């Protein structure tokens, strides 16, 4: 059987909030925060959320390749934007996957992503496992400091795997180190020392040991140990208990990213796969009302795969955002005066959204079979003035097309949660054009001719009805790795 991990990818937002700026804002209130002031955390833009990050991570893994083999999507998060609407369904639509697939959301626990990955290995079909997290945290909370926003994707299925599963094990106990309920907006946490000594160390260790035992291996056989935790020396202590070498314990990316919650085991797995060599054994574990452990062996195929950017590529794509107030504003942690202009009715007619899902969610337009003109959105009459053929267009995806800026502006008048609103005409190299928002760039870098790629983002939020709608935006293509 050639079943295993076929691809991996990650997404970490470009913005990094230095922890010192959070400390400077909050240490007047809680001076103990000063000890957590090192490094920086990833931070979503106002138009990013777990759904958009999951789409980005999946695209990082899939690299525009044929995704028709994917038969199911599992999306793990404890911060799903929608409580009753299939979040993995939005991801599948944005990825323009077949509509004849299964999809499920897994949440409610920090180990939901490893559980999803384990579930993918229970089946035989190709499964896209994605996980993303954007925690809502109270201002001046330790969790606000130690968390990061991010996502990872692992493609599991039959093929030429880059890593094969050797063993997996789980344990489940109702150990409540923290919780969040339907009544509470934020996590409520118990003290770290008790969590570590009574929960983390005691509940993970036997699961990891069982996993190793069922593979017929010992801790010494593990090359890389991925166990997310912000508890001091937490992963090291467990490694020691099961005989994993100290140098095998992977860095938890706390200094450069922060803990991305549910997504973090997969973020760490994606990070280690980028440096792993054939024969390496990777043990991924996660904690939450028990634990999951999965042991992989890397194959020769690892040499032939790289994600578009991966964890390190995303870490290198970095912009410091020292403004802590902006961080709060993006997460509705502060009540900004947004002005009358922001009050425009943002109701989303759901019938219209469904009817136009190809254009809205999948960035699919049409290509005229008569004259070959790609056009967005598709229409019944071809836009080419020399053609105007009727009902001649077949579906044509613009999501992976590169466009050039034809005209642009940086607009301070149009309401935007982050002015100026940069937008302009994007002319796709292979044909077609559309006026689009331009994001993740500096207004000064806007230039006619600049090459742009498409990304899936929040278009609008409707505070009146608690809805958010998504669409595609343009961002500079330049940070794409050569040959990727």
């Amino acid at each position: 059987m050639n079943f295993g991990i076929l691809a991996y990818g990650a997404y970490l937002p470009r913005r990094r909030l230095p922890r010192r700026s959070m400390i400077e804002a909050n240490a007047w209130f809680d001076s103990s925060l000063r000890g957590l002031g090192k490094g920086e955390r990833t931070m979503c833009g106002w138009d990013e959320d777990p759904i958009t990050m999951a789409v980005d991570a999946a695209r990082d893994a899939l690299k525009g390749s044929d995704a028709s083999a994917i038969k199911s999507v599992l999306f793990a998060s404890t911060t799903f934007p929608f409580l009753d609407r299939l979040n993995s369904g939005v991801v599948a639509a944005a990825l323009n996957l077949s509509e004849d697939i299964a999809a499920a959301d897994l949440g409610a626990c920090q180990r939901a992503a490893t559980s999803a990955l384990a579930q993918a290995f229970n089946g035989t079909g190709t499964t896209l496992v994605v996980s993303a997290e954007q925690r809502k945290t109270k201002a001046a909370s330790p969790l606000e400091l130690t968390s990061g926003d991010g996502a990872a994707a692992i493609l599991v299925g039959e093929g030429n795997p880059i890593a094969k599963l050797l063993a997996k094990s789980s344990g489940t106990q109702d150990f409540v180190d923290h919780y969040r309920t339907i009544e509470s907006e934020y996590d409520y946490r118990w003290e770290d020392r008790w969590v570590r000594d009574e929960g983390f160390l005691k509940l993970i260790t036997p699961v990891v040991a069982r996993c190793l035992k069922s593979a017929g291996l010992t801790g010494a056989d593990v090359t890389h140990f991925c166990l997310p935790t912000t508890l001091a020396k937490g992963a090291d202590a467990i490694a020691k208990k099961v005989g994993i070498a100290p140098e095998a314990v992977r860095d938890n990316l706390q200094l450069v990213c922060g803990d991305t919650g549910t997504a973090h085991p997969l973020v760490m797995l994606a990070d280690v796969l980028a440096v792993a060599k054939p024969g390496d054994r990777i043990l991924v574990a996660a904690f939450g009302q028990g634990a999951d452990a999965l042991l992989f062996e890397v194959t020769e195929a690892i040499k032939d795969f790289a994600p578009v950017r991966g964890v390190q590529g995303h870490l290198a794509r970095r912009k410091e955002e020292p403004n802590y107030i902006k961080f709060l504003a993006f997460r509705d942690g502060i009540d900004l005066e947004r002005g009358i202009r922001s009050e425009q009715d943002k109701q989303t007619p759901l019938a219209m959204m469904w009817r136009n899902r190809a254009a809205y969610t999948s960035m699919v337009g049409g290509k005229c079979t008569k004259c070959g003109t790609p056009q967005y959105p598709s229409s019944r009459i071809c836009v080419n003035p020399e053609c105007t053929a009727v009902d001649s267009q077949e579906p044509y995806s613009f999501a992976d097309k590169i466009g050039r800026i034809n005209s642009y502006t940086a607009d301070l008048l149009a309401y935007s949660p982050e002015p100026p609103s940069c937008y302009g005409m994007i002319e796709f190299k292979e044909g077609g054009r559309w006026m689009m928002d331009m994001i993740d760039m500096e207004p000064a870098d806007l230039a006619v001719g600049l090459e742009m790629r498409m990304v899936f983002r929040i278009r609008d939020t409707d505070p009146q009805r608690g809805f958010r709608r998504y669409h595609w935006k343009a961002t500079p293509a330049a940070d794409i790795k050569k040959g990727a």
Partner: protein
Amino acid sequence: MAKGIKDKVAILGMGCTRFGERFDMEAQDLMVEAYLEAMTDAGIEAKQIDAAWLATGSPEFHLGNSALALTSTLRLPYIPTTRVENFCASGTEAFRGAVYAVASGAADIAIALGVEKCKDAGFGGLPPVGRPMNSKFIWPSVSAPGSFAQLATAYTSKFGTDPKDLKRAMAHISVKSHDNGSRNPKAHLRTKLTIDAVLNAPMIADPLGLFDCCGVSDGAACAIVTTPEIARSLGKKDLVSVKALQLAGSNGSEAQFNAWDGSYFGTTKAAAKRAYAEAGITDPRKELDLIEVHDCFSITELVTMEDLFISAEGTAVKDILDGFYDADGTIPCQIDGGLKCFGHPVGASGIRMIYENYLQILGRAGDRQRQDNPRIGLGHNVGGYPHQGICAISIVGAYEG
């Protein structure tokens, strides 16, 4: 080509309110103000009006839907009444309806009235549209200045124009319009500006600063039209007749097809060509005496000078800086202050342009009267956005029949 409208219809009377922040007035009050001036000018009674057209851009902010507000406010007794909306070209569109009704013989005398009450929005700029449309899902967070600002980036890219030169020419446009507006007692903005003030103003949408943008206003404008024969029979001697009315709507290619470079209005070029042919104009740079163009933004006016075939491609900056379009230049542009300073009550703007050309041709424009007996004036509206819009052109002139 069709024979066209030239000299088939004459203007019997016109009226226009003071534009501005008319916080004390309803849209209906503004309508009456413009109507009474036009009726006095026409010298007719309400019962002589056979049909009526109303133009509004955002009626949900004042009058609501339908043309009922026109006949009921003006107490016009049970005549045909129609509301039209074509973005910022709405006023010219209402005028077109009235003119065509007269030309067809369906009406002897028709009225076109445009009105807008923009200043009840609670903020500057155009009021927002209501319920989300299909386009809201897939358009960027666009504003009018941001949409038109892109003309500038495309223009400098196309012609290699130094952005600083472009910005200076744009500043000249605004300074000129403020200068003109200062002589117009009905203008919304009557304060003169300096080039430095324009160049140093806060940025709105790069590269458009505050003074590169027109505001929006409350106001109304009204035209009463009839045939030249009826006008004469009513005792009118000097007549201003309609020489051309043209409209061009985009086929969607600017937004979706890779041919347009973003630096000009294809709609303006198409409408201008047809309008000149309809009016019998072969050399607009020599034959036009006055132009009132849609200077919603300074850059719009700049590229429109080329799109109207008055300045050759790539030479508008030079013509503008040379003063060609100043009040004392060869072809004054916005001698009344334009959208920039006379103001921009959306539904009224097209009719306001015709009003100014009408006054100038009749020598009734007061302090701002052009002294060389202008004979022919062009009005130009752009509705929508450069990449998705509509253009209306009106040409009126002294009737020589």
